[in-house]
């Protein structure tokens, strides 16, 4: 899966949780929680969305790696490589 495909999959999951967000406006290296109104429940719903989208498991311990968009893309790419 290319980085762009992973990126669009992530944004799809994100808009599920925050429909009013404009995907293009998200800065890839800034903490998502600083750019969007996301609380712990939104984060959980987002993680479940990613899990469904890419069929990978994300233990709670890995949450910190998902702070930024780039971080998430790297995390998923690595996870898919191991599978």
């Amino acid at each position: 899966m290319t980085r762009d495909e992973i990126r669009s999959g992530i944004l799809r999951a994100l808009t599920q949780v925050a429909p009013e967000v404009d995907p293009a406006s998200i800065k890839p290296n800034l903490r998502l929680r600083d750019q969007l109104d996301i609380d712990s429940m939104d984060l959980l719903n987002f993680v479940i969305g990613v899990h469904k989208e890419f069929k990978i498991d994300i233990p709670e311990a890995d949450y910190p790696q998902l702070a930024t968009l780039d971080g998430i893309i790297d995390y998923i790419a690595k996870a898919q490589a191991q599978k």
Partner: protein
Amino acid sequence: MAEFVMPQLGADMSAGKLIQWRKKVGDRVERGDIIADVETDKADIEVEVFSTGTIEKILIQPGEKVPVGTVMALIREEGKPAAAEVPAVPREVAAPTTPVAPVQAPPMPAAAVAPPRVAEALRIHISPVARKLAADLGIDPATITGTGPGGRITLEDVQQAAQAQAAKPAPAPEMDRAARMRQAIGAAMARSKREIPHYYLSTTIDMGRPLAWLTQENLKRSVEDRLVYGVLLVKAVALALRQFPDLNGFWVGGKPTPKPDIHVGVAISLRGGGLVAPAIHDTDRLSLGELMKSFRDLIQRARAGSLRSSELSDPTITVTSLGEQGVEAVFGVIYPPQVALVGFGKIVERPWASEGQITARPILTATLSGDHRVTDGHRGGLFLAAVERLLQEPSLL
């Protein structure tokens, strides 16, 4: 070729069981001959044939039960008889009168019918015409106090509310949803402050054990079933209310009305402003998994803006958690007609002394806003203590 079918042997017969053939393939039969015996509910019946000829084929074997009209045998007819012979009279056949199951007569209504146990929380009682007028005038019934029997809002109540509102400058005619919600929340909060003598209590809770339990628990759960700590708080409040029912209910018609069922409303801040507090039904009876599922569903739809107002059944108590907004202690305003509000702040690592030892513990501040007309600080304090005790035994939640 003539067909010999399973006959209709009575008004409400639908099928019959063949007992025996009295003729076999090749036998000649005359109209009116008895060629088979059929068993119905009522009796065994000799069945006659209505055509004259020779039996060509047998299709149904004795013992088979077939619906009325099923072809049981084929008869090669001799040429149509010029004059119909005097046919033997077909044997009279009993219709199995299957008795219609006696309908259980509804028990006579008791003289005075006790008001039905409303499963969901108190709906706003308002007469149809009052509801129609309120809708037409854009007045939220929740903002009106009913003077009718049992606190029902009557036409006159709405008319007076309309006059009172007319005295105020009319709001901009075209209000979008958020502004209208703002107005409704404003009205409710104003009424709460006007009418409810609040008292406030707070306590600090060591969240170490519940959080550790939660981490272990989530390892065992799939992503979809993963729990957030907020669920533990809500469940603890629900279970504590079993011992403090006076905090779970309403102030109606000038007196406290405790409610037998516990429906905890969870305050959810909506994206783009506004707040809703949909109730989770029978919160105390749900498992953590069930609670999490309805919790997640409600919040996701509320924040995505797709929660319909009809789903907003009114809670018997409300919990609000502003920890994520960085707030340590929340002293909230009670939602009328409820009589209590529980608040949770954020979890903070704090030095914590226990048995003379200082260690760093995750500390959470829990608060209670109570309606002093219904309960006093003493009861409130005991309630908060109960919540804390429950949180220390997370596996029992």
